[in-house]
Each structure stands twice: as structure tokens, then as C-alpha cells.
């Protein structure tokens, strides 16, 4: 596919006995935001390092912006934020960014602007050794914004960021994606990924176990919906009798049903009339979805 920024096919990586990645295929289109999910050691960071050409793949084909991973052409158009990003503690934020700007062939005078973008203008002239974890992470983000990268590979970019900064960070990503940059990020924070990415890829023990938009994954998993029915005073036992499978929790009746039974079940509850005080429909959470896919499905 000529149009995709990143194409991976049948990527396998072994570290001796450890199979870090097995037969992973993935492609990311321009302007697309893809989240890579998976438990600790699932192979997310390994996959990113291979995309950057930092470590060689055992087998499989990868093309990054129509170039080989790690080639100068690929490195020119890819920005990277490693997990636990680190900098030399003796340099100031501004000095470090000026250096990175020159390495990308950009003018070092943009350093202050970038630091402002990530909210570090005040600390720009202090040594990075005195920065907090979140501040270092922001320096990492600032350097990933240098130039017009066609692909951003961000390994747990929001780790260490406070909730407000996370929001600002995803807003920055939205702008970049609108300008056509592809974004591949890994995260353990499911809820933030939910609203801010176009596609989700779930890795489990080095295998890709699910891939698609959140809605698609929901449909495919077909996880049960939970209904919470609050009864009017005293009518709980009566309702429980007419809704088989319901259990009484704190005065409310909880019951689960499959997606396909949902409407019929709702109709039955509506038929109970004014015995019902309130009704909540809870779709399966992202956590449920995630554990569904990352659990047994590995053959």
C-alpha cells in the first residue's frame, strides 16, 4: 500500500528463547491515530524500537514512510518518544532542545516556542537534572514535535503527566493528525485512549489479538450488557420474579444480557410500568473489552 505511512507485515522478534513478537501485521494511514495496548511485556516497546530501526527484526517486512526502518530517510520523517525518556542532567531544557532541533536540520531558535507549547517556558533555562518526572516527559514531547514528522512513535507518552497535561497533550496530537501525521502510541490508560484514537491494536504475549475501532471491537467481543433496575418502594421482589437472572444489590436489581437480547429485555422492563423507578444501561467497559481480548484468544 503506497498510501500508508507505516506498513508492518508478519513481524517476528525473538530475544533468544523469548518470543517478543510473533507474526504481527499492521498498517497506519496518514492522519490516523493508533493506540497499542497490551499487558507488561506484551511487546509494545519492542515493536516501536523495531519500527525505529533501533533493534533488528528476526523476520518480517517493515516499511516506514516508504523507507527501511532506521535508514536516514526514515529517521528524518519519524519522531520518537521512548518510554522513560531521559536527558543529560547537566543540560538545560532549552540547550537540549536546541541540539535536537539542529540534529533534525531545523533552526535552533524554535526551542523556546516548543517549550512553551508543552508548558515548560518557565523552566527552560534550568538544568534538566532539576526537573520533575512530568517535566522531563514534556521535554520528550517537545522534541517529538520538532519539524513535521510524518510518523510519531510515542511509547507511553502520558506516563507521569497530570490529567490536565494529558488533555493538552492529546489536543496537540489531534492537531498533528489533522495535518496528516500518523501517530502510533502505547498506553496503559484505557479511558484516555478511548476518546482520542481512531484505532486500537491489542497485543498479548507478542501476538496481535485484536485490531479495529472501539465500536468494531465492542461488536466483535459481544460482551454482555449490564442493566441496573431501581425498583419503587417494596416492588423489588416482584420485579425480580419477572426478570429471571436478576440479583438484588443495594436495593437495585442487576442483570446481564447479550447484545442481541438487550432490546427484548428493555421492553420487558418497560412493561413493568411504574414499579420501576429508574433504569441504567451499562455497556461493557473498555477494561472488560481489553481483558476479553488479551485473555484466552491466543491460540
Amino acid at each position, binding site marked *: 500500500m503506497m498510501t500508508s505511512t507505516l506498513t508492518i507485515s508478519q513481524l517476528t522478534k525473538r530475544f533468544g528463547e523469548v518470543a517478543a513478537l510473533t507474526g504481527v501485521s499492521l498498517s497506519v494511514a496518514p492522519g490516523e491515530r493508533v493506540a497499542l495496548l497490551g499487558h507488561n511485556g506484551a511487546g509494545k516497546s519492542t515493536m516501536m*524500537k523495531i519500527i*525505529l530501526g*533501533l*533493534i*533488528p527484526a528476526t523476520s518480517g517486512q517493515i516499511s516506514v514512510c516508504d523507507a527501511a526502518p532506521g535508514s*536516514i530517510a526514515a*529517521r*528524518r520523517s*519519524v519522531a*520518537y*518518544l*521512548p518510554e*522513560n*525518556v*531521559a*536527558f*543529560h542532567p*547537566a*543540560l538545560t531544557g532549552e*540547550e537540549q532542545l*536546541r*541540539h*535536537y532541533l*539542529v*540534529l*533534525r*536540520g531545523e533552526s*535552533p531558535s524554535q526551542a523556546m516556542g516548543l517549550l512553551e507549547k508543552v508548558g515548560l517556558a518557565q523552566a527552560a533555562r534550568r538544568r534538566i537534572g532539576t526537573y520533575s518526572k512530568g517535566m522531563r516527559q514534556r521535554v*520528550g514531547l517537545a*522534541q517529538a514535535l520538532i519539524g513535521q514528522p510524518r510518523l510519531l512513535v510515542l511509547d507511553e507518552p502520558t506516563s507521569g503527566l497530570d490529567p490536565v497535561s494529558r488533555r493538552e497533550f492529546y489536543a496537540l496530537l489531534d492537531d498533528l493528525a489533522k495535518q496528516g501525521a500518523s501517530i502510533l502510541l502505547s498506553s496503559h490508560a484505557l479511558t484516555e485512549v478511548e476518546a482520542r484514537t481512531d484505532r486500537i491494536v491489542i497485543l498479548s504475549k507478542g501476538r496481535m489479538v485484536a485490531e479495529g475501532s472501539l465500536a468494531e471491537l465492542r461488536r466483535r467481543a459481544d460482551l454482555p450488557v449490564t442493566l441496573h433496575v431501581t425498583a419503587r418502594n417494596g416492588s423489588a421482589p416482584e420485579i425480580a420474579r419477572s426478570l429471571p437472572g436478576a440479583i438484588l444489590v443495594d436495593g437495585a436489581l442487576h442483570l446481564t444480557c447479550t447484545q442481541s437480547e438487550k432490546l427484548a429485555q428493555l421492553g420487558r422492563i418497560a412493561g413493568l410500568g411504574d414499579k420501576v423507578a429508574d433504569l441504567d444501561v451499562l455497556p461493557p467497559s473498555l477494561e472488560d473489552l481489553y481483558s476479553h481480548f488479551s485473555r484466552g484468544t491466543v491460540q
Partner: protein
Amino acid sequence: MKRILSTARTEFRIALRNRWVSIALAVMAVFSLVLALAGSAPTGGLGVDRLSVTVASLTSLSVYLIPLLALLMSFDAIAGEAERGTLPLLLAYPIAREAVLIGKLAAHLAILALALLLGHGLAAGVAIWNDPEALTGLPALWRLSWSSVLLGATFLGAGYALSALSRRPSGAAGLAIGLWLGLVVLYDLGLLSAIVADNGGWFTTEAFPVALLVNPADAFRLFNLTASGATAAAAGVGGAADTIPLWQSLASVLLWPLAALALAAAAFRKVTP
């Protein structure tokens, strides 16, 4: 080119803040002053000016000091980045690994050159102040200066290679000290005892000159002593300087920095972050 310059500037800044610049400058200044003052004591008609005497003793000192300073500055260059976790990001940038090395080398060489400039400047100042005749020793001092920079480059390159091979700063430091002890101290002791045991045989006439030339530190000493004709002023290995033509030690002094850098580049290329 801009990338190399920026790397060099950044490394210089780091060395400045880590006190490496002040340490190198102070060490060179103190030792040069001490030797210059000792060399300017009345020598009693050796027929050489005072600066030449100082240069001879500076040469003997530099053989130990320059490799040590160079290794101390370089052992952390790659292992330190790996340990701090700055290496993966650096290698994701569009800069060749060779360019990273050359940038670091430029910064570290500049520090060495500054230290040499200060030390040798002080030595020349003291000698000329005490003895106007000492001006005749300036060419020898200049030769010592630039060959010291080349010796420094050789051991910087060796330090980078060790740094890349060991991946951890502690391991790299151990290897660097080992290399220094081996090449600068034990090597000469070994040669000396071999010569004594050999008693003027094949080793002394055939192997010994080669052995001197392949060791960058010995070649450096040999070159400076031969060129200034001051072999008489130094004891030890210098005594063998007469038999080896100047161009051979010069070639060794010139080629070693390139070889060491090539080694460093080869070792760095094998590093996976």
C-alpha cells in the same frame, strides 16, 4: 556538519559543567609548571637550552598523563548514554553514528588542546623568563603540543571503543584503567625485562623497535625524543630511539588516531540500544 558542531558544543558544555575542563586545565598547568621550574634550575652545561630540557621531561610526563586524561574523558561517552537511557532517542535522530563520535571527539580534543595550550604556554613562559636562549626550544615544544593532541585523539578513540564494547560505565572505566596500565606502564616494563633477558639478541635488534612503534604511547615518546635529538636527556626506553628512523615513529603517531577512531566507529555500530 551542523549536526557534528552541535554535538561538539553540547558535549563541551557537559564537560564544562562536569568539571572535566577545569580538571584537565588544572592538571596540565600544575604539572607543566612544576617541570618547567625544575628544568630551569641551573643544569650545568649540558649544552641544551632550558626549554628543551623541560620539553624532554614534559614528554615523559605526557606519555602517562595524556592517555589517562583522554581515557577518563571518553570512557563514559557511549556507556554513559546507554545507562542514562539517552541512547535510543539519540539514535532515532537522523545523524550517523560516526558523526556522533566525531562530535564528541571534537569536544574532548578541544578540551585537551586547551589544557595543553595552557600547560605548554606556562612552561615556555617560565623557561624563556629564566633563559632567553630557551627560544631555541620552541620548535620542540610545538612538536610536543601537536603530537600530544594526536596521542590524545588515539586514546579518546580507544576510550570510545571500550565504552561501546562494555555498555556500562563501570565496566568501561575498568577497561579504560586496564588499557592505560597495560599500554603505558606494563608494556614498557615487559619490554625492558625482555631486553634484559634477551641480552642483545634477536628481540633487541628486530622485535623491540617494532614493539615500540606499535604502541601509540611509546611511538609518541620515541617521535618527540628522536626529533629533538634529546634522547640523552631521557632515560629508559628512550635509549633505543637512535636506531629507529624518525619517519617511522611519525607514521605511527599519525596513523594511530585514525585506527583508534575506526575501532570506535566499528564498536559503536554494533551497539543496539
